[in-house]
């Protein structure tokens, strides 16, 4: 039987479309239902982050980093502040380090919950999304008690934190973790081993490891392709070398290594690892320590530049900062992990059905605020 080739059609998905996770436009060339090329058009959310940074002081950049990746704001400002601290050679108190790790890992769980929920939602599973959002809300409540904000915290400062932990936080966090851990199994029963979900994601959008590295894909997407790489273990920053946790990698349990299902599975396993880290950090948290102790009066890093990267929930988040010794940064460049993940979409979507593209896009976990900056 010969394959009937039809005329190619260009289909626009977005900029206003619920499956594009923000304001993203995809120019999809299709032959019938089969996708032959995707050109992502980005920049709809461009807010001139890098240009603005040159006109504001170092501490004023911190709230801006929150707004780049509004799903994982703690992790974003974490990367920025430790880059500045390394430039200025500031050592923060132990208590600050522990609180930062607790916040970063809780935010990682919250971010993964959103990623997993919307991934399911994109391909038609509505109920798990509600469950995951319910649990994410508990984390946001914890953050609210800490700094008063649900999503955009401005919590991590250069050399310290904006507020100390409120009374009863440790107990509340333990309570959350105890309630949350069994929930993960519930999600798995609902979605991960659901036959329809497996059919839609296993063997779909396979991302081989060498392609992933060549495209600079990082974080859970890279680990889904079977590469054991996590900056928290491989290039430990802050105090991550003190905790015991595993790096889950995709094993191709339902299909082949690097498919959508593997990326989903890696995120589920990472939430368990984050729970482990938070438990250890809560246990070791020093009760004494002034969180404002190491905050410098003037933030003026010495002349020079730094490239510092940390593991955000989406992957390697890098800041390239150039200082000329003045109170305002000379140049701030953000290397966003979602940006690189977005660029690989064309490569792994070719030859798949149009409806699979949305499953692949969801599994890459992109945040448009961070791509467009």
């Amino acid at each position, binding site marked *: 039987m010969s394959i009937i080739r039809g005329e190619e059609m260009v289909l626009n998905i977005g900029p206003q479309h619920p499956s594009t996770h923000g304001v993203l436009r995809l120019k999809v060339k299709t032959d019938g239902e089969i996708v032959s090329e995707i050109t992502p058009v*980005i*920049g709809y959310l*461009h807010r*001139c982050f*890098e*240009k*603005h940074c*040159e*006109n504001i002081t170092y501490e004023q950049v911190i709230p801006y980093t929150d707004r780049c990746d509004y799903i994982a704001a703690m992790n974003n400002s974490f990367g920025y502040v430790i880059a500045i601290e390394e430039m200025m050679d500031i050592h923060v108190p132990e208590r600050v380090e522990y609180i930062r790790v607790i916040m970063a890992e809780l935010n990682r769980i919250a971010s993964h919950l959103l990623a997993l929920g919307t991934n399911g939602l994109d391909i038609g599973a509505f109920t798990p999304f509600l469950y995951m959002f319910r649990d994410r809300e508990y984390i946001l409540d914890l953050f609210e008690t800490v700094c008063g904000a649900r999503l955009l915290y401005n919590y991590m400062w250069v050399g310290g934190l904006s507020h100390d932990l409120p009374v009863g936080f440790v107990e509340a966090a333990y309570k959350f973790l105890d309630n949350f851990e069994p929930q993960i199994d519930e999600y798995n029963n609902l979605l991960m081993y659901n036959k329809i979900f497996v059919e839609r994601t296993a063997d779909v959008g396979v991302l081989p490891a060498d*392609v992933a*590295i*060549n*495209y*600079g894909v990082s974080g859970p997407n890279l680990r889904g392709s079977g*590469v054991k*790489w996590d900056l928290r273990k*491989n290039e430990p920053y802050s105090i991550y070398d003190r905790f015991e946790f595993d790096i889950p990698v995709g094993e191709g349990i339902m299909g082949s290594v690097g498919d959508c299902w593997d990326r989903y599975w890696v995120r589920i396993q990472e939430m368990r690892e984050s729970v482990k880290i938070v438990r250890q950090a809560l246990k070791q948290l020093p009760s004494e320590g002034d969180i404002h102790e190491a905050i410098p009066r003037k933030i003026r890093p010495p*002349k*020079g*530049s730094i*490239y510092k*990267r940390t593991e955000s929930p989406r992957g*390697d988040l*890098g800041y*390239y900062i*150039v200082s000329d010794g003045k109170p305002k940064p*000379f*140049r701030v*460049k953000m*290397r966003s992990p979602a*940006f*690189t993940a*977005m*660029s690989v979409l064309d*490569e792994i979507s070719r030859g798949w059905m149009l409806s699979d593209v949305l499953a692949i896009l969801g599994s890459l976990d992109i945040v448009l605020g961070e791509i*467009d*900056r």
Partner: protein
Amino acid sequence: MINEQVAQKLETQFPGAVIVQEEPVEDCIMLTSDQWQDVAKFLRDDPELKFDSLQCITGVDLGDENPMDVRYNLHSMSLLHKIEIRIPVKKDNPTIPSIEKIWRIGDWFEREVYDMYGIRFEGHRDLRRMLLPEDWEGWPLRKDYETPQTYHGMVVPKVKS
């Protein structure tokens, strides 16, 4: 392996490619742009270097009459070392060979640098603006950039500094 060793290796392999810094201020390798494509291929494929991952491309405008820099942060996933490469480009005619065929992510990174600095990457498959509208005028991250008053009849708000 650190920058110095890599610089020496490059100097023997590609004479004239490395710009010798009289007073090295920062830990990096300065290169000329003319052999950059071959050098990049060598950096990726040499068994002792194996820089398989391009982390970041940053454009920097050093202001006044200084040349602009394109800075590459490379990392090796297998050998766990990293270097920074800087290539100065002239401001009046900024061109540099493209490396998007060597590291595929270079495609989008280079488009972003082009978008912000107007540095043309020769041999790039599709050099268009990335984050700004296609018809935007000027290169915003250059230090001498002046924000246009209007865009399609809309007033562009002024940034107070």
